[in-house]
C-alpha cells in the first residue's frame, strides 16, 4: 500500500512540476514565437498574395478585437489607396488546423488571393496547398462572403488531388474569414483610412 501511495505521489509531483514549468515557459516565449512566425511563415504568405503592393504589408498592420481574440490585419496599398486587407483564419484539416491568409479588396468585397500559412498536412498531398496555384487561384475574384465548397459537397471548388479534407479546410477557413470580415467591416474601413494618403 505504501508503495502505491509513493508511486502516485511521485508521479503527480513530477507531472505538476513539469506542467507548471512548461506553462510558464510557453507564456514567456509566446510573444517571440509569434514574431518569428510572422517573419518566417505569415510574412512570405502575405507577400505572395499582396504582390505589387506599394507599401510593406508586414509593418503596416493593425489589430481589431473580435470577441475575445485579437485579429491582425495586414494592409496592402494599390494605386495609391489602402484598399486591401489580408488576415488569417483556420479550418480543420487532416493534421489539425490549416491556417489560411486571405486578402480581400474592401471596395468590392472580393478575394484578391489566398495562401496557406501553418499546417500539418501530409507532404505530397494536402501540403501541396502551399504551392498549388491551380487550387488557390480558384478563390481569387469570388466574393469573400460566398462560403465556397468543394465539388464533392455540391460547390464549385475543385479539390486538391487526393486531399479533399485539406480542400474542405481551406473552404471552411474562407467561410469563417468571410463571417469575420462582415462582422468587422466597419472597423476595418475606419482603420484603413488612417493608412491612406
Amino acid at each position, binding site marked *: 500500500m505504501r508503495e502505491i501511495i509513493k508511486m502516485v505521489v511521485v508521479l503527480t509531483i513530477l507531472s505538476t512540476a513539469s506542467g507548471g514549468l*512548461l506553462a510558464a*515557459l510557453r507564456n514567456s*516565449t509566446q510573444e517571440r514565437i509569434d514574431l518569428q512566425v510572422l517573419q*518566417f511563415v505569415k510574412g512570405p504568405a502575405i507577400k505572395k498574395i499582396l504582390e505589387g503592393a506599394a507599401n510593406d504589408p508586414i509593418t503596416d498592420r493593425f489589430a481589431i478585437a473580435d470577441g475575445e481574440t485579437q485579429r491582425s490585419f495586414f494592409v496592402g496599398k494599390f494605386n495609391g489607396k489602402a484598399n486591401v486587407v489580408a488576415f488569417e483564419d483556420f479550418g480543420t484539416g487532416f493534421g489539425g488546423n490549416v491556417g489560411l491568409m486571405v486578402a480581400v479588396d474592401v471596395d468590392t468585397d472580393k478575394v484578391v488571393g489566398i495562401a496557406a500559412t501553418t499546417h500539418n498536412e501530409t507532404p505530397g498531398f494536402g501540403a501541396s496547398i502551399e504551392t498549388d496555384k491551380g487550387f488557390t487561384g480558384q478563390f481569387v475574384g469570388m466574393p469573400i462572403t460566398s462560403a465556397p465548397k468543394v465539388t464533392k459537397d455540391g460547390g464549385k471548388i475543385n479539390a486538391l488531388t487526393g486531399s479533399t479534407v485539406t480542400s474542405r479546410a481551406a473552404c471552411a477557413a474562407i467561410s469563417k474569414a468571410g463571417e469575420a470580415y462582415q462582422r468587422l467591416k466597419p472597423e476595418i474601413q475606419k482603420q484603413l483610412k488612417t493608412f491612406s494618403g
Partner: protein
Amino acid sequence: MAKTIAQEFTKGLWNEIPPFRLVLGLCPTLAVTKSVEGGIGMGIATTFVLLFSNALISILRNIIPPKVRIACYIIVIATFVTVVELLMQAYTYAIFRQLGIFIPLIVVNCILLGRAEAFASKNKLLPSIADGLGMGIGFTLSLASLGAIREIFGYGTFYGMHVFGPSFEPFTFMVEAPGAFVCLGLMLCLMNLAGGK
C-alpha cells in the same frame, strides 16, 4: 573500479559514440543529416535534453519508485524536449522549421531513455552530467560528420557554401533516404576498421 569523470565524458566521444558504436538513435541520424546545419542543430538540441534529463534523473534516483521509473523518465525527458522545442521556435526558427517533427521525436530517442536507465539512475550527479554531455557531443559530432559528407556530395556545399564550384554535378542520391543508409553503413564500417574489431 570507479571511472573518473573525465573518462565518463570521453567515452561518449569515441568508445561508446552513440550512432556508430552503440548504434542508437538512428531515426534522427538518418533523417536530419541532409546538411551540416541540420545535423548540428539536432545534435545540440539532443545534447541539451540529454544533459538536463540525466542531471535531474540522477538527483531523483533515490526518490523515483522502481516500478514507475520509466514513466518518470519519460515525463522528465518530455518536459525538456518541450522546453527545447519552445526555445528553438523562439530563437532559431529557421532551424526549427528544417528539423520539424524530429524535435518532438527526441522524446522517443533511445539514447535518452538508454542513458537515463543505464547510467543516470545508478550514478551520482557529476558523472551523470559528464555522461550526458559526452554522449550528446558524440551524437552531435556524428550527425555533423554524416551531414557534412551527405551535403558535400549531395548538394556540393558545406554549411551552405559551395566547395566544388558551379560545374559540380550534385550526387543527389546522397541526400535521399537510401544515401543516408549507405553513408551510415560506410561510416560504421570505417569506425570498426579504426577500432580494430
